């Protein structure tokens, strides 16, 4: 018994040392797992806003495209794209005075105006309606030509329109617009329907397409 004691102590010490050496790995692995799960929980809990795009084509192949993008990610990623007219999250527009129409002034005028219908065109080929309603800019276009029969509905919060035009002259601030959009509730932004395609762009807090 007495001869076994030192050997037993040595083994115990060795096992303890091994356990001490290996325990940080276990603890670290545990921490990583905890971090990952808490990350998921936090991200879900803080109510991220997701922009969804869905295109359904009913032509021969029946193509479907679904895109789900977190708005916060789009906000961070957009400034990293420097291509053509897009720089630092802003897009240059030469057509700010297109057809002698100052788009910024127009947006400013709409913002300061009361709710109402601003443009109503009813033609043989197209019906167009532009209105401001409950702080939303609403554009409806109905293409009545037989070949298309296309219906476009755009509904943009005025705060987003303001943010879009908040950059310098001849620039659209996409990042500011996305930021303004993230403060909005669930809303359908764009809907395009024709005989072959349905396009829908909307905003909600779900990370999957319905």
């Amino acid at each position, binding site marked *: 018994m007495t001869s076994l004691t030192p050997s037993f102590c040595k083994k115990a010490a*060795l096992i303890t040392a091994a356990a001490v050496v290996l325990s940080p790995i276990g603890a670290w692995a545990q921490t990583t797992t905890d971090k990952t799960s808490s990350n998921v929980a936090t*991200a879900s809990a803080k109510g991220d806003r997701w922009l969804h795009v869905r295109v359904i084509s009913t032509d021969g*192949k029946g193509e*479907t495209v679904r*895109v789900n993008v977190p708005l916060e990610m789009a906000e961070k*990623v957009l400034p*990293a794209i420097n291509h053509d007219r897009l720089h630092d999250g802003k897009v240059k527009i030469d057509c700010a005075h297109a057809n002698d129409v100052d788009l910024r002034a127009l947006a400013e005028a709409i913002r300061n105006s009361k709710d109402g219908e601003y443009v109503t065109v009813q033609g043989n080929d197209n019906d167009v309606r532009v209105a401001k309603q409950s702080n939303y800019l609403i554009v409806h276009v109905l293409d009545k030509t037989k070949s298309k029969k296309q219906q476009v509905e755009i509904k943009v919060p005025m705060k987003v329109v303001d943010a879009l035009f908040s950059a310098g002259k001849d620039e659209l601030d996409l990042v500011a617009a996305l930021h303004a959009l993230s403060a909005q509730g669930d809303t359908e932004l764009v809907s395009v329907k024709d005989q072959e395609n349905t396009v829908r762009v909307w905003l909600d807090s779900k990370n999957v397409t319905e």
Partner: protein
Amino acid sequence: MLFLAKAALGLGGTIVLAGAYTFHEGVIRVDVDESREGGSHVHMWVPAAAVPMAMHIIPKRHFMYASEHGRDFVPLARAIVKELKKFPDAELIEVDDGTQHVRIRTHEGKLQIDETEPGQDVHLLIPLSTLEDVTSQLEANAPSA
């Protein structure tokens, strides 16, 4: 006898440590299956931690080449990966045209790309942390403008 036990414990501990380090970032998984006659079947599992290590061995000139050609793409990819890590699992892109199906999603800290078409299935699973390491290194080695 005690010496052997110590040696075995040391060896075992080293293997466990090496294994834990090698797989702590997860695994990169590549599966390619071609169902045509004579088609190839590639199934590859690579420890994700091996990639940053391997990148230290690759000559700098190759990085310069890759960075120069991906000058516009690399910062964008890095920004996307960095942000994706903050969000829960999500279906990012799904395209289905009846015959071909492409799906890009994040799943448990990994980017998963699945492509299925008649005669070919491709599945990729890459840890986001590995993508971040790779894009960071490519960006760090980019030639200054």
